[in-house]
């Protein structure tokens, strides 16, 4: 018996050890890129070499030079400053929206799973219907109805992505709710909120965090798409999607002003996706 219990952790360690070295290098690189953009978003205004709206050069769509490291845009503004300051919008708005979406989705999902009964049925059916709304299309409808501002963008993005978060959280919580320690907690008379907060939430936090990352990627993509259509962040401010839109006329010359913001978006979203794929299996998987 003791032999048996000893061997299991060892085989598992060996299994993880075989592949984990190369995997964690990719994961670590991705985390560095994500951290890099978050730091840029936080300290952007002190880093940008020029003010965001200032026309610094007579030449438009120039290639990178010593003065303008990433070239200039369609008006002759410094591209590097605009990308650094755009990080605030792309990263900031997306994190805020993803955070709200996940908080609402997870809270509602756990409550639904634990309460069960008609409350669960009604909420689940309603949210199934919300999932059947195409995201970009509904973004257009909201922006057409109330116009585009930062709170509206955050609210719309959060509204569009909380249903997905709800579904995953509910599925996780339904499984955990059946486990013995939750039943024991209920039997010894713990209250509803104690059970949800102390017994269920800590046991699903890994998958929930992975889901937060995925939702963040979806939101970055949708926000960039909206801005690309001119309906997201409004001038003179610009997130990365809006930067691509502004400079799209430079596409025919292959100007860095179009390519650099696109690369910024891609580096962020691909990093988050790969980082989630390379999370330790124990943290990422559906059940602990």
């Amino acid at each position, binding site marked *: 018996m003791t032999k048996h219990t000893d061997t299991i952790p060892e085989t598992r360690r060996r299994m993880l050890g075989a592949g984990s070295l190369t995997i964690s290098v990719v994961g670590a690189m991705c985390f560095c890129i994500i951290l890099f953009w978050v730091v840029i978003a936080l300290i952007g205004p002190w880093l940008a070499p020029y003010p965001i709206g200032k026309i610094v050069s007579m030449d438009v769509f120039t290639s990178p030079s010593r003065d303008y490291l990433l070239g200039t845009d369609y008006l002759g503004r410094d591209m590097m400053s605009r990308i650094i300051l755009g990080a605030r919008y792309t990263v900031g708005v997306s994190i805020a929206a993803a955070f709200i979406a996940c908080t609402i989705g997870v809270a509602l999902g756990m409550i639904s799973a634990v309460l069960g009964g008609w409350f669960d049925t009604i909420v689940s059916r*309603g949210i*199934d*219907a*919300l999932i*059947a*709304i*195409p*995201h*970009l*299309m*509904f973004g*257009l*409808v*909201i*922006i*057409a*109805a*109330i116009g585009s501002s930062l709170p509206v963008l955050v609210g719309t993005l959060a509204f569009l992505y909380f249903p997905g978060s709800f579904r995953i959280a509910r599925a996780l919580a339904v499984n955990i709710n059946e486990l013995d320690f939750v039943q024991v907690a209920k039997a010894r008379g713990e209250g509803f909120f104690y059970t949800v907060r102390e017994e269920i939430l800590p046991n699903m936090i890994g998958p929930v965090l992975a889901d937060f990352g995925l939702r963040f*990627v979806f939101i970055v*993509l949708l926000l*960039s*798409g909206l801005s*690309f*259509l*001119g*309906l997201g962040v409004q001038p003179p401010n610009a997130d990365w*999607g809006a930067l*691509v839109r502004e400079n*799209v006329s430079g*596409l*025919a*010359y*292959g100007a860095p002003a*179009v390519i650099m913001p*696109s690369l910024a*978006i*891609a580096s962020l*979203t*691909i990093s*988050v*996706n*790969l980082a989630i794929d390379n999370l330790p299996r124990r943290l990422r998987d559906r059940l602990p």
Partner: protein
Amino acid sequence: MITRMILTRLGVAVLTLLIVSVVVFVATNMLPGDVAQIVLGQAATPEAVAGLRKAMHLDQPAVFRYIIWLGGMMTGNPGTSLVNDIPIVTLIGGRLHNTLLLAGVTAAFSVPIALALGITAAMWRNTLYDRLVSFATIAVVSVPEFMVATIAVLIFAVRLHWFPALSFANDVHSLGELLRVFAMPVISLSFVVSAQMIRMTRAALIDTLGQPFVEMATLKGAGRVRAVLTHALPNAIGPIVNAVALSLSYLLGGVIIVETIFNYPGIAKLMVDGVATRDMPLIQTCAMIFCLGYLALVTVADICAILANPRLRYK
């Protein structure tokens, strides 16, 4: 049994469409401003505004307006545009046809390619080929649609000079011109849709490859190609058709971006223009058409999954 499941699924779809219509109606009526005042402008007399309010049923409760609006939608009479007074049916007519054509050509082009790539990637799993396909699809899935389109333009129009970059001619005279005009939008959309389809096809097939009967076939001496094509593939048809239908629903997001970039006269471009002029009846109608298309694809995917499940077939 199986008929009942399909009927239930269709009923759920209709109910969902109703809930979606409520959400669209509420979202488009959230603005506290007076639509009649906005339509007539600042200079309108109070009498004119009051008259228009009555004509537009704005003096009625919201529930009543919703029922009138829904009735109009269902009888094919969604009203007239606020901007130029043209009936919305006329505005949408030809453009819906253009969008469906674009979507149809894209599907005809991308489904066979995506299936071939997905199946071969699963067949030669963990080879260099599979890794390349997987990395490429992850990359395409993680970047915005407009970036896929701009990269396609950079490669096919700017570098290779195969197609015109960002122009769309309305008068197309020959098949050759039609091909040139369609090429860039179709290529861009195909990338967006196929990436998802390849991933899901590969996953569905690999799932089936792990089943005991495939292992049995391998033990009896079937090669990898034979095990995949004659043993696994027929049993994975259900999940694969499901994956195809679900991936095609990505067309709906992609088509908005692609029609805007290439100035393609479809319904998505009409809607984006409608957002700029805040033409609410037009936006509502386009939104409902999009939701209907999306629901139709998701429902077809689910029904395929029901039909393909042999356990249900023989009950």
